[in-house]
């Protein structure tokens, strides 16, 4: 029963996320590229999206991260790593290159699939391939 509720909660959360991405036009890769194009035709929209998102989560997490447990689970599932390491920095660097090339990252790409064009589907498939490549390299 709780499993179903968690699934529905996730569905609701995902729908809000997807709707937010569409409303803010983050599913338009040109808008992302225009934000990162500091030297060219700069569009601050993505920055404002992040600020608005953070305005909500900075406040809500202050409270939510100090409860003993979430509503539908026994405990919070939070990342445990705290130290900065080379994997974090190199990984972020690599991520940024891909992001700056195509103007997509996982969330907006999946949401953009709703547009029915081929691009987001190709990109998402490649992201999954990238996951597999990382797992393969890591297990060497």
């Amino acid at each position, binding site marked *: 029963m709780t499993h179903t509720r*968690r*699934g529905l*909660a*996730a*569905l*609701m*959360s*995902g*729908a*809000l*996320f*997807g*709707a*937010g991405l*569409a*409303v*803010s036009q983050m599913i338009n*890769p040109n808008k992302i590229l*225009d934000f990162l194009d500091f030297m060219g035709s700069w*569009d*601050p*929209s993505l920055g404002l*999206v992040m600020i608005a*998102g953070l305005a909500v*989560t900075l406040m*809500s997490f202050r409270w*939510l991260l100090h409860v003993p447990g*979430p*509503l*539908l689970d026994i405990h919070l599932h939070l990342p445990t790593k*705290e*130290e900065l390491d080379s994997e*974090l*920095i190199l990984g*972020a*660097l*690599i*991520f*940024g290159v*891909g*992001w700056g*090339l*195509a103007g997509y990252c996982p*969330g907006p790409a*999946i949401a*953009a*699939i*709703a*547009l029915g*064009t081929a*691009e987001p589907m*190709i990109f998402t498939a*490649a*992201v*999954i*391939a*990238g*996951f*597999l490549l*990382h797992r393969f390299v890591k297990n060497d």
Partner: protein
Amino acid sequence: MQNFTPWSALSGGAMIGLSATVLMWLNGRVAGVSGILAGGAGISDPGDRSWRLMFLLGLLLGSAMVIYLAPGQPAFAPRTLFSPDLLVVAGLFVGFGSRMSGGCTSGHGICGIARLSTRSLTAVLVFMGSGAVTVYLARHLFGVSG
């Protein structure tokens, strides 16, 4: 400043923040799409697949609802002429890099910074930087477009 859409950015961003709030409040999970996708695709976190698949389904449905039901949507013409080869390369980098760094723009950006994580703040600054350099090189030096 071109094509700046402040009101849709603010409202869409607030919705994203609300989404992360709901997932943390109800399920106690970080709304990091790279992690959710990796788990949903069966690549990591075995046994925790179903809620992830539901989230991804919601992502698609929520976006579709806005695109097809909201007035004036989609507010842009979808890009269709971008090189598929470059899309694949970009996707590989994004996939690889997100797993290596432990997150993406939602995981590190919206959730990680909200958790006051130094790791996440660092990741965001680094990928914004490498993203900006890449756009400069791709757009202005190599003339990549779609």
